[in-house]
C-alpha cells in the first residue's frame, strides 16, 4: 500500500471516529428538549456526554489537520468551496460548545432554556450539514481546472445531498437516544428507549435510501457489502433496543455509522473530491496528496500516537461507565436537626 492510500484510509478512520463519537453527542443535544422533562433530566442528559464531548470533537480537528497535511489540495478546495456551509457548522459548534459550560453557571430557568435551545440547534445543524457535505463530496462538485469550486451554497442543496443530511440527522439522533438509554436510569432511560424505537421509523428508511442511492451511482463490490452490513447493523440495533439490550443496540448504531462512513469513503476512492465539471479536474488521492517525505513523517507520528489516544480515550469511557441516576444530581435531603 502506498502512503497516499494509507492516508486516505487514515482520514476515513478519523472521520469515522468523529461521527461514531460525536454522533451520539449530537443526538443527545437534539433530544434535550424532547426527553428532558425537568432540569434534573436535562442535566442528566448533558452530564451523560459531559466528560467526553470535547475529546470527541478533537477527532474533527485532527481530521481537518490530517487532511491539510496529507492532501493540501483537497483541504484547500473543499474548505474554500464549502465556505458558507462550514460557516454554519462552525457557528453551531461554537454555540454548542460554550452552552455546556455556561448553562449551569447562572441559576435561572430563562438562562437555562436559552442555552438548551442553543444546544439543540448547535447539535441538529451539524448533524444535518455533515451529511449534506459528505453526500456532495461523493456526488462531485463543480471544480475548474485549477481545482477551484465554482458553485455556491445552493449547489450543495440538491436532493441527494439533502437525503444524506436527513440520513445523518436521523441516524445520529437514534444513536444518541440509544446512548442515553445505556447511560441513564429510571424514567429517562425508559423514555430514551421509546424515543429510539420511534426515531428508527424515520432513521431506517432514510439511512437505507441514502445507502441505496449512493450504491446505485457509485457501486463497488466491496462497498455493496459494507452498505448491506450497515443496514443489517441498524436493524439489529433497533431490534436490540426494543428487547432492552441497550449495550448491543449501541454497538449496532456505532457499527452502522462506522460502515456508512466506510461505504462513502470506499465509493469515493480513488477520488477525494470529484469534479462535476470535467472528470479530468477531479482531485484524486494521487494528484492532491503531499510528497513522500511529509507523508512518511506523519505516518510515523500517526502509527505511534493514534493507539495511545485510543487507549486513554477508551479509559475515559471506562471511568465514566456507570449509569447516571437522578439522585446523583439532586442535593441530598437535609439532615434533620441541622440548619
Amino acid at each position: 500500500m502506498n502512503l497516499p492510500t494509507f492516508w486516505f484510509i487514515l482520514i476515513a478512520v478519523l472521520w469515522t471516529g468523529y461521527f461514531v463519537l460525536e454522533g451520539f453527542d449530537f443526538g443527545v443535544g437534539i433530544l434535550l428538549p424532547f426527553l428532558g422533562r425537568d432540569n434534573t433530566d436535562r442535566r442528566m442528559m448533558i452530564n451523560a456526554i459531559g466528560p467526553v464531548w470535547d475529546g470527541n470533537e478533537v477527532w474533527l480537528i485532527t481530521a481537518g489537520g490530517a487532511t491539510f497535511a496529507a492532501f493540501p489540495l483537497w483541504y484547500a478546495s473543499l474548505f474554500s468551496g464549502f465556505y458558507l456551509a462550514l460557516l454554519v457548522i462552525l457557528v453551531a459548534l461554537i454555540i454548542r460548545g460554550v452552552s455546556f459550560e455556561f448553562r449551569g453557571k447562572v441559576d435561572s430557568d430563562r438562562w437555562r432554556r436559552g442555552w438548551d435551545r442553543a444546544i439543540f440547534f448547535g447539535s441538529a445543524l451539524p448533524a444535518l450539514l455533515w451529511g449534506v457535505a459528505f453526500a456532495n463530496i461523493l456526488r462531485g462538485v463543480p471544480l475548474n481546472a485549477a481545482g477551484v469550486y465554482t458553485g455556491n451554497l445552493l449547489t450543495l442543496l440538491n436532493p441527494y445531498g439533502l437525503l444524506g443530511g436527513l440520513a445523518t440527522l436521523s441516524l445520529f439522533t437514534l444513536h444518541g437516544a440509544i446512548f442515553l438509554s445505556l447511560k441513564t436510569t429510571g424514567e429517562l432511560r425508559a423514555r430514551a428507549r421509546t424515543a429510539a424505537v420511534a426515531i428508527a421509523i424515520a432513521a431506517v428508511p432514510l439511512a437505507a435510501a441514502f445507502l441505496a442511492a449512493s450504491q446505485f451511482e457509485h457501486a463497488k463490490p466491496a462497498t455493496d457489502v459494507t452498505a448491506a452490513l450497515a443496514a443489517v447493523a441498524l436493524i439489529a440495533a433497533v431490534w436490540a433496543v426494543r428487547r432492552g439490550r441497550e449495550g448491543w443496540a449501541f454497538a449496532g448504531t456505532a457499527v452502522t455509522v462506522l460502515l456508512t462512513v466506510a461505504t462513502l469513503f470506499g465509493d469515493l476512492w480513488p477520488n477525494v473530491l470529484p469534479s462535476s465539471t470535467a472528470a479530468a479536474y477531479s482531485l484524486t488521492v494521487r494528484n492532491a496528496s503531499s510528497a513522500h517525505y511529509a507523508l512518511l513523517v506523519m505516518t510515523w507520528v500517526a502509527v505511534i500516537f493514534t493507539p495511545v489516544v485510543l487507549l486513554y480515550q477508551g479509559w475515559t469511557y471506562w471511568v465514566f461507565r456507570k449509569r447516571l441516576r437522578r439522585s446523583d444530581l439532586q442535593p441530598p435531603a437535609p439532615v434533620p436537626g441541622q440548619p
Partner: protein
Amino acid sequence: MSVLDLSRWQFGITTIYHFIFVPLTIGLSVLVAGMQTAWLVKKDPAYLRMTKFFGKLFLINFAVGVVTGIVQEFQFGMNWSAYSRFVGDVFGAPLAMEGLLAFFLESTFLGLWIFGWNKLSPRLHLATIWLAAIGTNMSAYFILAANSWMQHPVGYRIGPLTHRAQLTSIVALLTNSTVLAAWPHVIFASFLLAGAFVVAASAWHLARGSDTGLFRRAMRLGLVVMLAAGIATSVTGDVQARLMDSQQPMKMAAAEALYNTSAPASFSLFTIGSLSGGKELWSVRVPYLLSLIATLNPHGTVQGINNVQRAYVKKYGPGSYKPVIPVTYWSFRLMIGFGLLATLLALLGLWLTRRGRLPRGRWFYTAAVWGVPLPYLALAMGWIFTEMGRQPWTVFGVLQTSQSVSPGVTASSVIISMTVFTLLYATLAAIAGRLMISHIRAGEPEEPQDFAADQSLPVFSY
C-alpha cells in the same frame, strides 16, 4: 474592500480574539495544577478551595478558547486556500501533530479532571490536570512551530514539478531557531497574564477584606509568577530581537521606523509627527539602545527600511516590501510598554505584601484589578507586531499575502462570515466576562465537612 483585505481583517479579528483566551488557558492550567499539587502535598484545605475557585474561572475561559480554535484551523482552507495549497505539505504537519499529540491530551484529560473528582484517586486526579496543562503548552509549541516557519522558512524546498513547498526535514521545522525563541516568549507572556489574572481576582476580595486567608496566598502566588514571567518575557523577547534582525531585517527596521541604516542606532520611546521618514516633530530617544537590542553592540549597525527595500527589490523583484510602519512602530512599543508596566505592578505588589503584610489603602487593589488589561494588550500588540511586520509576506521570502487568498470565495461570503464571527465573538466575550466577574465576586464557599458515603456529584459538572 477586496476579498484580500476582508480576509485579512477577518483573520486578524478572529485570531486576536482567540488569543484573548489562549494565554490564560496556557498559564492558568499550570497554576491550577500547581494549586492542586500544593493541596495534596500540604493537606491544607485552603489550597483545595483555591484550586476550585480558579479552576471554575479556568473552565469558563477554556470553553471560549476551544470553540474559537476550530475556526482558526478551518480558516486556512476557507479563506486562504491558495496559501493552503502551496504550504500544506509543510505547514499541515505541525497542525496535524497539534491535534493528535496535544488537543486529544488536553481535552480528554480535562474532561476527566472536571468529572473525575470523586471517581479517581487524588493522585490520579491530580495527574489529569497536569496532563491537560502539558497538552495545552505542547499545542502552543506546534502552532508556534507552524508560525515560525512562516517567519523563517526552514526544512523545505520548492517541488520542481508541483511548484509547491515540500517538507524536507521535520527536525529542522521543529527546531527552527525562531520557534525555539518564540515558544518561551509566548509561554512566559502567558504566565504574566495568568499571574495578573490571579492577582486581580484576589485583589478584588482583599480590598473588601473577604476570605483574606485564601486570597492573600493566591495574590502572592500571582505576584511571584507575574514578576518572574515578566522578567523572562523580556529576556526571551530580547533574544528574539536579534534573531529578527538577522532573519527579518525589515521587521526590525519597521519596529523603530528607522529609514536609513545607522550605527549606532537610537531607540525612540515616543514620536510625535509622521513616521514616513520625514522630519519628526518631537521624540524621546534613548541613544545606542536599538543597536544594543539588535546586535548586542551599542555601536552595531542596524539596517534602515530604505536600504532593506533596495536589497529586496534586487533579490525578489520590483515591488514594495515595507509593512505598515505606524502599525509596526506603535505595536512594538506598546507591547514592551504594557508588559513592563505589568511587571512593575508585580514588583510593587510584592513589596507591599512582604513578610505577611497587606496593603492598607485601596489604591493598590484598584490598580491590580484595573491592571489586568495590561498583559492582554501586550500580547495582542505582540501578535499584531510580528504578523504585520512580516507583510507583505505570508511565508517570508517565499509567498506573498496577496497570492495566498482563496480565489473562489466572494467578497459577500467573507462579509457575511466576518460579520457573523464579530457579532458572535462580541456576544461570547460579554457573556464569558460577565460570568467570570460574577464568579469572582461570589468567592469560594467553605468545603462541606461531611462527605456522603457514595458521593458521585461531580464538583464542576454541568
